[in-house]
C-alpha cells in the first residue's frame, strides 16, 4: 500500500513538472507570437519604443535575454527559493513559493492567489458536497426503480440541471432569494475563520447554482451505474443470503456502483478549482477564476502563469487523492 502511494506520488510529481514546463513554454511563446517584448506582459505600459536601449536593459533585468532553459530554471528556482525582482524603479524580494510578481498590481502573484484560493476552495468543496449528496441520492433512487415516479421526476430535474447554464440559474436564485424573499441580504464574502455565518450566507447560493449543474450529471451517472450493478450476479448472491433489501442496496449495490463515481468526482473537483469563472462573476466572488479573467484582460502574464500552475496543481493533487482513495475502495487496484 505504501509502495502504491509512493509510486502514485512520484507520478503526480512528474505530471506537475511537465505542466510547469508547458505553462512556461506557452507564456514564452505569447510575446514571441505577438511580436512584442515580454516586458510589456510584465509591467504593462512601457514608454520605451521597441529596440531601444532602455527596453533592452529592462529585458536584461528580467532575464529575458537568457536562453529559455536558464529562464525556466530561474522561474522554478524562484518558486522554491524566492528571488529578487526589479523593473528598474521598483525592487522587490519575492519570498518562496514565489510565483512571480505583478508589477501592474504591485503585488506578489502568490499573495493574489492566496487571497483568491480560499474563495475558490470554499466554492468548489461546498458545491461538491452538495451535488455529491443530491446527485447520488436521486441517482440511487432512480436506478433502483427505473420508470417509477421518482425516476421520472429525478431525470427531468437532471435534464433541466444540465440544460440550464449558471448565468441563468445564478441570477434567478439571486432574484428569488435575495431580492424577492430577502432571505439573504447580499452578503460579501467573509473567510470561514473570521465570520463563519457570513461565509455560509455568501456561499449558499453559489453552491446551489453550481451543485445543480453537477448534481444533474451525477444523478444520471449514479442511475446508470446503479442499474448496472443491481443486475450483477453478486447482488443475486446477496439476496440469496437472505439479507434485507437495505443491506443489499447500500452495502452491496451502492458500494460497487459508487466506485466509478469516485474517479469522476476527483477530476471534477480538482478541475473546478480555478475554473468557476461564471459562478464567481455572477455572484461577485473574487476567486481564482475571477483572478485569471482579470489578469488575462490586463495582459498580466505573471498572474496568469501563477493561476494556471495552481489550478493544475489542484487537479493533479485531487487526482492523486482519488487514486489513493480508489485503492482503499477497490482491493483489485491495490494489489495489481
Amino acid at each position, binding site marked *: 500500500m505504501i509502495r502504491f502511494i509512493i509510486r502514485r506520488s512520484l507520478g503526480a510529481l512528474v505530471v506537475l513538472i511537465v505542466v510547469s514546463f508547458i505553462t512556461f513554454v506557452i507564456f514564452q511563446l505569447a510575446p514571441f507570437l505577438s511580436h512584442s517584448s515580454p516586458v510589456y506582459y510584465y509591467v504593462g505600459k512601457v514608454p520605451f519604443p521597441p529596440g531601444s536601449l532602455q527596453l533592452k536593459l529592462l529585458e536584461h533585468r528580467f532575464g529575458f535575454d537568457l536562453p529559455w532553459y536558464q529562464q525556466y530554471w530561474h522561474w522554478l528556482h524562484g518558486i522554491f527559493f524566492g528571488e529578487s525582482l526589479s523593473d528598474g524603479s521598483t525592487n522587490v524580494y519575492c519570498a518562496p513559493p514565489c510565483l512571480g510578481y505583478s508589477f501592474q498590481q504591485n503585488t506578489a502573484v502568490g499573495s493574489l492567489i492566496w487571497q483568491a484560493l480560499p474563495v475558490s476552495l470554499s466554492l468548489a468543496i461546498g458545491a461538491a458536497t452538495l451535488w455529491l449528496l443530491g446527485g447520488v441520492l436521486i441517482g440511487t433512487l432512480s436506478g433502483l426503480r427505473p420508470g417509477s415516479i421518482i425516476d421520472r421526476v429525478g431525470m427531468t430535474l437532471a435534464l433541466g440541471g444540465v440544460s440550464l447554464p449558471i448565468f441563468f440559474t445564478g441570477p434567478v436564485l439571486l432574484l428569488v432569494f435575495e431580492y424577492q424573499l430577502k432571505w439573504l441580504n447580499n452578503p460579501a464574502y467573509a473567510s470561514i475563520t473570521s465570520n463563519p455565518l457570513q461565509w455560509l450566507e455568501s456561499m449558499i447560493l453559489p453552491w446551489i447554482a453550481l451543485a445543480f449543474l453537477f448534481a444533474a450529471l451525477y444523478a444520471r451517472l449514479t442511475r446508470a451505474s446503479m442499474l448496472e450493478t443491481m443486475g450483477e450476479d*453478486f447482488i*443475486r*448472491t446477496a439476496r*440469496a*443470503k*437472505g439479507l*434485507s433489501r437495505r443491506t443489499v442496496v447500500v452495502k452491496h449495490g451502492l458500494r*460497487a456502483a459508487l466506485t466509478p463515481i469516485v474517479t469522476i468526482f476527483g477530476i471534477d473537483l480538482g478541475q473546478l478549482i480555478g475554473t468557476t469563472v461564471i459562478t464567481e462573476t455572477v455572484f461577485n466572488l473574487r476567486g481564482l477564476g475571477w483572478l485569471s479573467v482579470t489578469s488575462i484582460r490586463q495582459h498580466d502574464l505573471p498572474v496568469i502563469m501563477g493561476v494556471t500552475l495552481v489550478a493544475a496543481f489542484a487537479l493533479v493533487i485531487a487526482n492523486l487523492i482519488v487514486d489513493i482513495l480508489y485503492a482503499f*475502495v477497490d482491493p483489485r487496484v491495490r494489489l495489481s
Partner: protein
Amino acid sequence: MQPQPAIDVHLQTEAPSAFLSVRDLRVHFPTADGLVKSVDGLSFDLARGQILGIVGESGSGKSVTSQAILGLHKGSSAEVSGEIWFEGKELVRMREGDMRDLRGNEMSMIFQDPLSSLHPFYTIGWQIVEAYREHNKVSKAVARRRAIEMLDRVGIPNPDKRFDDYPHQFSGGMRQRAMIAMALVCDPKLLIADEPTTALDVTVQAQILELMKDLQREFNSAIILITHDLGVVAETCETVVVMYGGQCVEQGSVRDIFYNPQMPYTWGLLGSMPRMDRTRQARLTPIPGTPPSLIQVPRGCVFHPRCRFRDRVGEACTTVHPDLEEVDATGHRARCHIDKHERSQIFANEIAPTL
C-alpha cells in the same frame, strides 16, 4: 436401495407430505415483445437427503425455476403462480420478509460463475460471516471461527489466512469452494446448485461434485442440481427432471432417464454427450434446430419443430399439447404422443445402439 422419485402432479391446497413440492409452477415475464413463459406448469417433489437433477438447454427455464424456489423473483415484474411447498410452508404466496428468513438459512444457492457471484470489494471471509450473522445472533469472533471452519471443511488450505483474501485472489475452483462454504454456513436443508461446475476446469468439476455429495451426506440436506451436463447428472443425482421450453418433458429416476428414456428430447440430450469410445463421426449426435421462443411457444408438443420422430404420430404433435403421462408406477413420466411401447422400441432399436 432404489431411489423413490415420489412425483405427483395433482394440485393440492393443503401441505403435501414431501419435503419440497413444486406444483404447477409458472413464472412469466411481461416484456415489450410479449409474455415470456420461462416456466410453464412445472411440478416435482423432492425428499430430504435426495439429489434432484434439472437438465435442459439454456433458456429451458432451469435457473428461473431455482430462483423461484428461493423467491428471488419477488419484487420484480415476474408473475409467479402455482405452489411451492417447503416443509409445510407455501413459498409462492409467502411475504418477502418471511422468505428472507428462509433464504441462506433453510435453503441456499450456489451460482454458476463464482467470480461474478462474489462481491469483488469484500473479503471471502467477510462475505461468509455476513451470511452467518444474518441468521445467527453471534459475535463476530464466533462467526469468524465458523467461517474458517467452513472454509476448512470445503477443502481450502490455510483457511485462517485465506479468510482475509479477496475473491480475485482465489482460483476458480477455490472460489466455488468458498461459494459452497457460504451456502452451507447456516446448515441449509435445501441446497440449490445452479450449474455449479460449468465455469470450472474439468478436473476441478469432479472435485466440486464430490465435495457436494460428501457434504450432502454429512448434513443430510436435499440438493437440486441444475445442469445441462448429463454426465454430471449420472454421477450425482437420484432423480431427474428434463426441462424443455419451460416445461417438464420427462422425469424419473436416474436409471429411467439413462436406461429407459421415453422422450425424443431426452434421446437427443443423451446423443449430445460426446463419447470418446466411438469413432469420430459417431461420437456426437447434436439435436438439430434451436430452443423454442418462450414468447411464442410452439403449438402442440413444444419439441415438435426439432423432433425427428414426429411423422410417426401425425397431426397430434403439431396440434395437441401432450400430457406428462406415467410410464410406470415408479414415477417415471414423459410428455410424448408416441405410443409407450413404440417409444421403448424406438429407443432400443434406433437410439441405444448409437449412444
